[in-house]
């Protein structure tokens, strides 16, 4: 059977067909081509021709034209559309014309940068030109670094290395910065939230340094499909961007199938395991020798899936080794071997984490099975994009898990197939992040009086830092005045350096993970069951001062859930609007949370097995929030009914908001007040779970209508009887009839 026949069977076999919630056929699309422009160096043209490229896709040509005309660009095209030529062509063409020209390539991860370097090297080797491309990251040997600083035409690195290894030592990189012509930022949609807010500030620092050396580089950015690629890239780079989103690459017919495993427990809203369902589907393809990639959400899930598939495949002549695993933690050599095996068709199937989602070259496969919604529409498209031949049809199947977001997407394909609802959000002016980078920037070059940072006047912050004895203001300049090296104290991947480390003491002592300070009282209080990579651990000791939690492996049939008393105090209102019956606000708040006690809850039955106290000091967090207040007499509900409805509504809103914010569900938190001291009314608060905020609540304020409508749909369409984790939450938490009350509240608020 070929993939077409397998798909036919999917449609006809009732057991499977009844679980399919949507089947989208994206028709075959011919390529749109353009000739090489005349200004393209003949050397480059002949190198491309040797690689079998005789003309360009229209988006590649457009990118080349725009960049050559000195415009900054953002290219948004799907996986496997020849995106890297969009930056490699203009960069190589410029270096061929001027051997002094330099470029920086920024990739979010190391693996990705290595892959891109090898592709670039192929073209350069083909041209037999002396263009030096180097990866500069933590693994670069010290003795190679001097040569890279001096001679590297293209320096491939990541933001973390730019932050601690390059910018603070910019005088050693004089040659690079003096001649910096291009900065390439691939996968720019990854730079959102905290990481993106840091990166925007990192680029503010880079701009200052370029200015010092008299260069003004052009940015070439690439992104997966999101709602606001131009806005995000302009915010990160602080430059106006030309958007290129007309994909000229050809594509074969593509089938995208949404598959929802059947319900096994209606009351709890539990469905059959997405992993097992995905396994069955994948085997269908694999047994028929259809090359298939299966994505799973965690490293553990990858290993489990791999074991299942290999067990089955070993019964067949192709054998168990026709299926391979791929994830972080595998050795680079092994990874390269798997990638090659896939490209050459020697490997039939691969099970991967999202490690293979980004642009690593594995060729195009026939089918992709996605186990569980990967968390964002953009990721899902990237994973689905792994399947897709130019000449034949391909299939991607998304298998939903029971989580609310999965259930929402699987039942609302329009969110997926229509314009992307997902915004890449950052807040470069988050005060914590901003101040951190102003410190780094002052270390790199003293600030002059009146100098701005990211277009903003920062005199007050500089004066503050002087008061803290970190800067010294003299001779109209602000100088770094401390012994420390500020970049080393600041991680680009978290809002504050204050993480708790989790140490497994089962055998020796091994650090297994980190938990941010805000979540620590909830997750790693003493006696808590901490789950990491599918393994349960019990917290034996929490050293609050030293920020260390000591845990030991256990195997128990319960999990723990901490009660958190959250107080929220409005500090400042930035925006507000009133509609009919509701009032919406966005502003700054102080969140004080106190973990009071924890419950032990049995798996599956959710029985309460006991409880214990938590003795930890309250945590304060200054952040941004969106809040919504309703009249006390809404829907003629009693006080308790309103509370139950608000709790349920708040849960739904927090659960589906990631759909618009491209964030992890734990990046935002909700709190309900039946009589808010600020609004004096029943109020739902949703706040950014990061000190200073990263822009989520502002977006929620902008889309509140949409969010409420989506929440209504979720509640109305959920099959459960009286609340489940897929909608308002289990009734044990939100009370009976929360669904009904929540709907009444929405009805009172929405005017439609």
């Amino acid at each position, binding site marked *: 059977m070929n993939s077409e026949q397998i798909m036919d069977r999917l449609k006809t076999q009732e057991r499977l067909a009844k679980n399919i919630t949507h089947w989208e056929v994206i028709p075959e699309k011919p390529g749109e081509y353009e000739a090489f422009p005349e200004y393209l160096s003949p050397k480059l043209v002949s190198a491309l021709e040797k690689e079998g490229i005789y003309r360009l896709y229209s988006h590649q040509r457009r990118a080349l034209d725009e960049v050559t005309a000195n415009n900054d660009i953002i290219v948004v095209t799907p996986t496997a559309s020849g995106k890297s030529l969009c930056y490699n062509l203009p960069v190589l063409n410029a270096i061929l014309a001027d051997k002094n020209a330099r470029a920086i390539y920024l990739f979010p991860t190391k693996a990705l940068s290595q892959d891109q370097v090898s592709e670039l090297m192929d073209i350069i080797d083909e041209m037999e030109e002396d263009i030096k491309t180097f990866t500069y990251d933590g693994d670069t040997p010290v003795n190679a670094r001097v040569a890279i600083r001096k001679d590297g035409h293209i320096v491939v690195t990541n933001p973390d290395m730019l932050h601690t290894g390059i910018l603070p030592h910019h005088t050693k990189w004089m040659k690079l910065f003096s001649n910096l012509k291009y900065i390439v930022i691939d996968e720019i949609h990854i730079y959102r939230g905290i990481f993106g807010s840091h990166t925007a500030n990192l680029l503010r620092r880079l701009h200052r340094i370029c200015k010092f050396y008299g260069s003004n580089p052009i940015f070439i950015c690439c992104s997966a499909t999101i709602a606001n690629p131009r806005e995000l890239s302009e915010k990160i780079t602080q430059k106006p961007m030309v958007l290129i989103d007309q994909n000229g690459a050809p594509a074969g017919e593509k089938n995208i199938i949404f598959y929802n495993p059947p319900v096994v427990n209606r009351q709890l809203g539990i469905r059959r395991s997405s992993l097992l369902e995905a396994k069955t589907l994948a085997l269908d393809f694999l047994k028929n020798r259809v090359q298939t990639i299966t994505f799973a959400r965690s490293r553990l899930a990858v290993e489990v899936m791999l074991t299942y598939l290999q067990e089955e495949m070993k019964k067949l002549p192709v054998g168990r080794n026709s299926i391979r695993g791929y994830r972080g933690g595998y050795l680079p050599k092994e990874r390269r071997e798997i990638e090659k095996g896939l490209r050459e068709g020697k490997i039939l199937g691969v099970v991967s984490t999202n490690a293979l989602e980004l642009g690593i070259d594995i060729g195009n496969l026939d089918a992709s099975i996605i186990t569980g919604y990967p968390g964002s529409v953009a990721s899902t498209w990237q994973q689905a994009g792994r399947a897709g031949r130019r000449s034949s049809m391909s299939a991607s199947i998304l298998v939903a898990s029971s989580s609310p977001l999965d259930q929402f997407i699987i039942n609302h394909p329009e969110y997926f197939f229509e314009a992307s609802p997902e915004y890449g959000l950052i807040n470069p002016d988050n*005060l914590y992040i901003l101040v951190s980078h102003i410190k780094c920037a002052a270390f790199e070059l003293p600030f002059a009086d009146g100098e701005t940072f990211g277009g903003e006047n920062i005199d007050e912050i500089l004066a503050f830092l002087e008061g803290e004895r970190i800067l010294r203001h003299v001779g109209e300049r602000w100088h770094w005045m401390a012994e420390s090296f500020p970049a080393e104290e600041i991680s680009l991947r978290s809002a504050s350096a204050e993480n708790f480390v989790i140490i497994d003491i089962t055998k020796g002592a091994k650090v297994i993970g980190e938990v941010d300070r805000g979540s620590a009282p909830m997750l790693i209080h003493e006696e808590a069951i901490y789950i990491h990579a599918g393994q349960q651990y019990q917290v034996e000791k929490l050293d609050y001062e030293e920020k260390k939690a000591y845990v030991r492996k256990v195997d128990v049939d319960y999990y723990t859930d901490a009660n958190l008393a959250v107080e929220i105090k409005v500090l400042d209102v930035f925006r507000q609007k009133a509609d009919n019956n509701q009032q919406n606000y966005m502003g700054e708040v102080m969140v004080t949370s106190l973990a009071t006690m924890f419950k032990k809850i049995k798996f599956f039955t959710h029985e309460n097995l006991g409880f214990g106290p938590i003795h930890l000091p309250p945590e304060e967090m200054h952040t941004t929030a969106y809040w919504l207040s309703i009249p006390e007499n809404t829907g003629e509900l009693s006080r308790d009914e309103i509370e139950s409805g608000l709790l349920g509504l708040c849960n739904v809103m927090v659960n589906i908001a990631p759909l618009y914010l491209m964030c992890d569900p734990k990046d935002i938190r909700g709190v309900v007040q039946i009589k808010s001291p600020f609004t004096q009314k029943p109020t739902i608060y949703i706040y950014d779970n990061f000190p200073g905020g990263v822009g989520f609540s502002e977006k929620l304020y902008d889309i509140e209508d949409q969010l409420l409508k989506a929440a209504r749909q979720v509640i109305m369409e959920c099959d459960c009887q009286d609340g489940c984790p897929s909608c308002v939450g289990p009734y044990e938490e939100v009370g009976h009839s929360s669904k009904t009350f929540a709907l009444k509240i929405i009805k009172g608020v929405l005017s439609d």
Partner: protein
Amino acid sequence: MNLSEKLKTFISGKQTGNIKADGHTPNKDIYPVMKKILEATTVNTPLGKHFIVEKIYNGYHIHGKIKLDSVFNISPEILKLIAKNSVFENFDFSRAIFIDTETTGLAGGTGTLAFLIGIGFFEGNDFRITQYFISDYDEEAAALYSLSGLLKNFDSMVSFNGKSYDIPLLSTRYMLNRMENPLEKTFHLDLLACARRLYRERLGSVSLSSLEANLLSLKREGDIPGYEIPSVYFKFLRDKNPYPLKPIFYHNRMDILSMVTLTANMAKSFKAPFESKHCANQDYYCLGRVFEDMGMIEQSIECYEKALNVSWVRERSYTRLSLLYKRLDLWRKAERLWIDMVKNNINTVFALVELAKYYEHKLKDYDKAAQVTQKALETVYKKRTIVGHSLKDEIAELKKRLKRIDCKDKGGRRNVQDAEFSNTGQGTGLL
């Protein structure tokens, strides 16, 4: 809430209210007190003012039991050895500066600057130390300007760890001030590398203070530990009280004087290794290495032989000396050393393998070769029981050797010419 209130909220809790903007410098004129306390005067340059402190020492000033001007007695031959580089025979101390900086931190990067730059140089019969000091950040360009002016008269420099610290740091400062870098000199003698080559085996630490104490019998009084220096300077920036700076200026001068006499001390070690009391024990091994690298074989052998009696470096001295003999085709001497080594249990396996090679390839005495190889194998086996890990490669290598010798032995009895068969590239042994 305005920004500063917010900033305070953000920081509060982390630091306990030490925030008092005392950063404002007292507005009084600090020149009189700088003059009185530090004997500092101001220098006016086109780029502004800075301070300077000058001290003149007699050429026969003794620092650490050595006269400063004794560096002029160092012959070109010895200079080559100190630097382990023959171009240094043209090094001229009358055209050299001794340089040492005091900085605002040790972290490196562009945010660290040198607030005190000390330069020592000979002037006629005197040794002069000029210290360029900035009483605030905005005087840096002026100080760098003056330093450039001074450096025009010199083509060489001597430092202690300057190659990786002081010079890159100053080069960065020149670049940040958009000034031409005057530090690209013909010769840069970095004494840290020289001292490490010579004294590391005996002293362990080759920090300047360790060298001073052990080689020059110097004890500083009124000194300040290096790590305290940045914070003292930061405090000075705020209160402009120069008293606490005194030890820093002293520290900087002592460092420079020590560089001078340390150079002279090294010269003595090289010049007369066996007469001078500047050399002892482990140093002979180090000297042997330098002599060997510089092609001074006779001296090298002499030093190694002396080092054979020094327990800490005995094994390495035996090993290197035996290999040196081997290279010189002095096989008998080499053999004697290897036998000694086996007898005294010094790097036994190495010695046995070398003997095996010698017997096999040179003497073609296969019986003897087999015998020592067998012994080496036994030694490795014994080692395995004690050390624990497998030593697989070593054993395989020895077995291969044994087999080959065996083969040759038999073949040799049939046909002696076949002995040449040995040079098939397998003879690299365990080196």
